[in-house]
């Protein structure tokens, strides 16, 4: 954990915070490949991004989600406040369930996405990628029986993802974990004591079988050791940002700074996105009489979004990173741009997420791909095929109980 800032350090306060799992992660970060997330020192990768990616898909791997923002909203008004803020109807959310949500400005532009955990009738945990307290406070105005606590530094969390993840938790002694269904929450006594609960949710950002594990920061290292002991023969390995990005793209999940620009941080007019543009229509529940941005979104639903986020299967094997998209092979009519692209090892396809003008979706889409081969630059034009379903959605991600190993 962090010690008091060194008063002799002229950069005290500027230095990155260390996650409660840092000592163990630092020991395993063979490449010292650190970047940062929300002020925390954060691994891009530990050893090799592709290796870590394959651990997610073939064994299991842990991702430090301590830097993720976590807010507890409690009180009789908590549900009403959240229900007005997000586009989904969370009055339908049952206790000990998790739901994926997004929230918008009055103008219907996406501020952020995240998950809501219903911990009790009047108690919710909201998690998201960026600090959101200012917007939560604005959203809370007028809801007096509500308490918001920023728990970001007070809950340690690890995401354990991959086919052997359930087995590892079983080995750790989490009885009945195999019966936990996707988007459900369960609590287990950690280290044999009810006083030190471990919360487990069957959630994640990889599209695979996986769990997120929530525990008090002071138990973080003890918990890590127990988990890694249990996972020893199941290929457990920490993974960083790079492998996350590969896995989430295969699953078709959007990423801030890639697919969308957070509305509250957007300067240029409409350089942010709406849920419709991001193909998050299914998150917008117009049966709900009121939620923030409803009028603007209703208008957009009726008029149609200018752009639509699509999944592309691109011919060849050159990732279409930062490519422009065209309606013709001559690249004369520009219709969009790629937001994320990769060669997917598990699907064995050249995949991408892309923003395409809705009006151009019916025609053939061509990507102009730039790539380099041993320092020489090349370009090619590749045909793209729209793909409706996620590139990667294995049966095991939903199977309950998951296969034993």
């Amino acid at each position, binding site marked *: 954990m962090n010690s008091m800032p060194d008063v002799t350090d002229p950069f005290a306060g500027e230095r990155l915070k260390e996650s409660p799992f840092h000592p163990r992660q630092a020991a395993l970060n063979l490449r010292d490949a650190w970047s940062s997330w929300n002020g925390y020192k954060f691994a891009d990768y530990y050893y090799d991004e592709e290796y870590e990616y394959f651990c997610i898909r073939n064994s299991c791997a842990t991702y430090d989600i301590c830097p993720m923002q976590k807010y507890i909203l409690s009180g009789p008004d908590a549900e*009403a*406040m959240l229900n007005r803020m997000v586009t989904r109807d969370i009055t339908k959310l049952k206790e000990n369930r998790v739901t994926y949500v997004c929230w918008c400005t009055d103008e219907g532009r996406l501020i952020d996405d995240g998950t809501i955990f219903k911990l009790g009738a009047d108690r919710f945990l909201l998690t998201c990628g960026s600090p959101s307290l200012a917007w939560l406070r*604005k959203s809370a*105005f007028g809801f007096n029986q509500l308490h918001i606590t920023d728990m970001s530094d007070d809950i340690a969390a690890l995401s354990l993802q991959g086919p052997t993840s359930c087995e590892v938790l079983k080995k750790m002694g989490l009885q009945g974990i195999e019966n936990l269904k996707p988007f459900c929450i369960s609590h287990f006594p950690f280290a044999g004591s009810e006083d030190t609960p471990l919360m487990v949710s069957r959630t994640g950002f990889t599209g695979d079988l996986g769990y997120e594990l929530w525990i008090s920061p002071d138990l973080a290292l003890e918990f890590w050791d127990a988990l890694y002991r249990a996972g020893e023969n199941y290929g457990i390995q920490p993974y960083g940002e790079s492998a996350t990005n590969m896995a989430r793209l295969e699953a078709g999940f959007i990423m801030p700074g890639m697919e969308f620009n957070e509305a509250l941080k957007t300067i240029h007019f409409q350089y942010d996105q709406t849920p419709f543009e991001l193909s998050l229509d299914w998150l917008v529940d117009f049966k709900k*009489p009121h939620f923030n*941005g409803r009028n603007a979104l209703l208008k957009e639903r009726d008029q149609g979004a200018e752009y639509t986020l699509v999944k592309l299967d691109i011919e060849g094997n050159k990732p279409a990173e930062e490519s422009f998209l065209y309606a013709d092979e001559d690249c004369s009519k520009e219709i969009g741009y790629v937001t994320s692209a990769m060669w997917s090892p598990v699907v064995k396809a050249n995949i991408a997420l892309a923003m395409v003008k809705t009006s151009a979706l019916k025609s053939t889409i061509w990507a102009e791909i730039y790539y380099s081969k041993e320092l020489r630059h090349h370009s090619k034009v590749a045909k793209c095929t729209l793909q409706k379903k996620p590139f990667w959605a294995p049966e095991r991600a939903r199977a309950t109980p998951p296969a034993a190993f």
Partner: protein
Amino acid sequence: MQTYDNIIIGGGHNGLICATYLAQKGQSVLLLEATDGLGGLATTREFYPGFRAPVAHSLSHFSETVVEQLNLLKHGYTPSSEVLDTIGLNLNGEHVVVSGEHISGVNKADQQTYADYLVLLKRFAKMLKPFWLKTMPRIGDNSFPDLMTFGQLGLKLRLLGKKDMGEFMRVATLPARDLMDENFDNDILKAVLSWDGLIGSKMAPRSPNATVLNMLYRMSGKHHGAHSLPEGGIQNLISALHNAALDAGVTVKTGALVKRIVIKGSSSGLAATGVELADGTLISSARVVSSADPKQTFLNLVGANNLEIGFTNRINRLRCDGYVAKLHLALDGAPKFTGLKNPNGRMIIAPKLDAIEFAFDDAKYGEYSKSPVMEIIIPSMVDNLLAPKGQQVLSAHVMYVPHKLKGGWTDEARQNLYQRLIDTLESYAPGIRQQIIHGEILTPADLEQTYHLTGGHWHHAELSMDQMLMMRPTYEAAQYSTPIPGLYLCGAGSHPGGGLMGGPGHNAAKEIIGAKKEL
């Protein structure tokens, strides 16, 4: 359950005016007033047995269009052809008297400058006048009527000629102090001429903002900004408005406090469908039109849960703290102001611009002024029903008295303020202390309580550039309609704003009638 086309919340003059226009179009209208009297701040109420006064004690810019269109003369309105002199009181009795286009008590140069000054201001006021009775264009909307309004404003500005147009642009947001120093020498004159641009606002002579625009707004009346009182006082106007409303078929209920606006939600969204009264009665209507202030309407009656987050926070950030207190004195005879034959004008105690400025300085840090400035009239001299025979009522607007007093409005604080006001009056009208039968002070906090008026602000929301025109009270609610279908605004918190003017009520009714036609 009975259903109306319109429920109007609030029986102030704007509520009455809006109700009457709608009823004249054949719509059914129920007007609900929380207090027992009509007129809002212009209600004439008994503050001591036999002595009565309204908070709003004179007229300066009541809309002639409204008088004409609602046939108020037929309904008993008797506007005065005479204007009240504005008298800048001087301790030594050498007062400055502004009497229409003439002034006395100042040097020749000031007199001459005043004539030119008035000509220019009247030109500006005339140019702006049509826009007070127009719905302001929506920001970012390019509909034809909106573009027309912009075009007209541009054209009117251009028609002033190059020099005057430039001059208008220069002075419109000038601090009053700059405009006065540039034109006049006499300290009292400067203070008196600034007064109407400042009163009711959290602004002082050195505040740049909308002081000059406010002066021009008040100059839109019949007498170009000079104050007057109808025969029978303010009550005469309110009675005429009441009669006009009844004649048009408006159902008027007083003592009916609205607890909330009923918002129904369905898969087609939210809509205002009626109101619930404090006693639990539910009344339904196709439209709810609120003349209550925007904070009261949106935050208390509608509720944040029914509004958008950004919008709610903009409403919450509206500046609505009142800075004017009201003093009512029951006197056993006419007060004798040093050097004044007859106190039948509008008397201002503000010996110089800095007197106003310093009074403001105290208030902006949460204290009432050490040396308060005030505007006094003796309304019982025009309306003898206000006081028993031979006795008089003194009515004074006192600046600057903060809504939120440091330490709160305790009995002691009120008593101290009252004594300070009487001391001030005593120095201008020696002996007045002995004439007092009874006195009351209404702080902005009292006005808030009595009249259900957020912050006790005269104009419901500060009349400043950021809260005026198409920003009043805030964008998305500045065209009388609101983000909630079926809910409209018609009070002083909407364009053109406050004072006994009638613009918001008139404009809102026009919007509602227009919107109905489009359906």
